[in-house]
């Protein structure tokens, strides 16, 4: 019962999905011990950040039915907020807090403005306008190089507790040294979990139901007395706030931030792919999508390298399997999933489970 309450009554509703989710959580928790090495830890940390980011995007796309291309803008605001504060004020928790608060306020105001001005129009226009705003913001950030470090970005030190130099104890535990990186990682996992459960709570509240109603039929929702513009704007603001937090987490983990890590349009496309492949309209989809995508992004290339070398005699196939072309295959998967299984992996699993019982 406690479990069900924790998940806000939104259980996985599929045995396979439940197993997958538990496996992901366990995998994340055990990464430092099971997969030693900096790369695995970085991949796991990135998965955590993107779970929050993709879930926040799903709040908008999957639950409210709004396509926004400005999501990385808010992600970037969070990351830059922390980066600029820590860079200017030195490594302290008050700097982190200040950075996060200022970034949140900025995101709040921006998303409110964009929402109020442009959520009245059709989906198509909103997509275009957000694309334009996001591009402008990216240019803006790289122009303010005094603050943002321009194209080079900013490096900074994290608060002492989280820095690699900090050591909890002299003796390694199960072969893993208990340093600041480990603390940072578990802090990241914990915050991710809290934020995710919070979002789950939001989408399963009466408010979340109204959002879904708007997605299904905005006209009818309006006729039932819900002001769709207000709800859409709320959804926009909430999603921006969570994206900002995800950005702050990313910056804290990387101790670096630049346009390519948090603001670029490539990341926007990545998020879109993760949401759709994982499954729109269910937050578990973002967990599955983000995990799958990032693992593929980091490890598929090795596999493709092998395949490409194996095919070195066949010219076209070799180029198609070139490790740099991993996005091609995910793009095809994306197009196919929009047609064939618009509810994504999670939706597919749930339908299957319903069919069995």
């Amino acid at each position: 019962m406690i479990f069900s309450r924790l998940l806000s009554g939104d259980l996985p509703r599929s045995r396979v999905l439940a197993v997958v989710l538990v496996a992901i959580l366990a995998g994340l928790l055990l990464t430092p011990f099971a997969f030693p090495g900096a790369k695995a830890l970085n991949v796991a940390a990135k998965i955590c950040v993107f779970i929050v980011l993709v879930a926040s995007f799903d709040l908008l796309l999957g639950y409210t039915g709004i396509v926004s291309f400005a999501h990385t803008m808010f992600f970037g605001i969070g990351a830059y907020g922390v980066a600029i504060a820590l860079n200017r004020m030195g490594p302290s928790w008050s700097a982190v807090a200040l950075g996060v608060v200022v970034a949140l306020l900025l995101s709040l105001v921006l998303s409110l403005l964009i929402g109020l001005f442009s959520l009245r129009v059709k989906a198509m226009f909103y997509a275009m306008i957000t694309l334009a705003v996001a591009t402008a913001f990216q240019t803006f950030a790289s122009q303010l190089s005094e603050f943002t470090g321009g194209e080079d970005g900013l490096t900074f030190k994290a608060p002492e507790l989280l820095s690699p130099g900090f050591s909890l104890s002299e003796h390694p535990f199960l072969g893993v040294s208990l340093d600041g990186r480990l603390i940072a990682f578990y802090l990241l996992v914990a915050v991710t979990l809290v934020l995710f459960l919070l979002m789950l709570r939001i989408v399963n509240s009466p408010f979340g139901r109204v959002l879904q109603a708007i997605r299904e039929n905005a006209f009818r929702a309006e006729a039932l007395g819900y002001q769709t513009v207000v709800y859409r704007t709320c959804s926009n603001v909430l999603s921006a706030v969570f994206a900002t937090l995800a950005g702050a987490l990313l910056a804290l983990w990387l101790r670096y931030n630049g346009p390519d890590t948090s603001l670029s349009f490539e990341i926007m496309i990545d998020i879109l792919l993760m949401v759709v492949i994982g499954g729109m309209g269910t937050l578990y989809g973002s967990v599955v999508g983000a995990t799958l995508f990032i693992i593929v992004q980091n490890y598929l290339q090795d596999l493709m390298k092998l395949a490409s070398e194996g095919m070195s005699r066949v010219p076209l196939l070799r180029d198609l399997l070139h490790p740099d072309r991993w996005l091609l295959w995910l793009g095809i998967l994306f197009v196919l999933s929009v047609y064939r299984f618009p509810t994504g992996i999670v939706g597919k699993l749930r339908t299957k489970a319903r069919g069995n019982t």
Partner: protein
Amino acid sequence: MTASTTTLAQDALPAVKLDRIPLLLLPVLALAALPLIGSFSTWVTLTFAGLAMGMIIFIIASGLTLVFGLMDVLNFGHGVFITLGAFLAVSVLGRMTGWTESPSLLRNLLAVLPAMAAAMVVAGGVGFAFERLIIRPVYGQPLKQIMITMGGMIVGVELIKVIWGAQAIPLPLPTAFRGSLLFGEAAVEKYRLISVVVGLSVFAVMFWVLSRTKLGLLIRAGVQDREMVESLGYRIGRLFIGVFVAGSALAGLGGVMWGMYQQTITPEMGGQINVLLFIVIIIGGMGSVGGCFIGSLLVGLVANYAGFLAPKVALFSNILLMVIVLMWRPEGLYPVGKR
């Protein structure tokens, strides 16, 4: 009220009044920039640069706006056709270096024209496949359309990288296109003149087709009211695929022009220009070719004037322009009836 309209309809169809105010924007803007810039010769150079840029943008964006007008399909993957055109131009021109490097204008043209033709044919063909495979299954579902065309673009760009590689490729101008002509003190780059000529011819042909032929009549009618055209027995689907192919071909042509304008091409160039295209078609009024033409020229002029007067502002000049135009006319310069 009803009586008067019926008598009017009996006499003749009332002529559609041409809205001239947006047309005036261009000269007004150009003249307003003159005192700010100060020097007349610089102003001529900048104006020409702006017009050339605007013409190329118009070639690219005209297909996008018509496709949207006809079927409410906004193709986020339009950029792929631009990139495709530019890369084809590199391939074709690369084989004809003897002619592109000869100083004779005729030979240069004989090299560039096949490149343009190849770009248009291939981009049109790919456009046909794109419409069939990517867009057709999701008619009337805007959310899916946005995502699917985006996905189509990702796959398209990756395929271009498979064929031509991921790095930037230089696309040098043919010899006779380089350099500039002097009008008094004002220097005008030759290529910009060529762009203006090509752009004007495309506009003229398109204007003729749209306003003087039956096909154009059907397209315009379809943009106004799709169902009515269908109910009169015309297959709007076929019309649409024709327009889509033509739009893709024009994007291919625009890609060649834009590639030569920039002189370097990258697989990402199409995606980067997408934002500009959206701004142009929003300014013009979604679905309006005339609006798209004026919007393109405005964007081109403003970008060049702002780039000279205040380089920092120039990066945002397009968005500012869009905001100003939308505050004046929220539906764009030439709103298309039904929306």
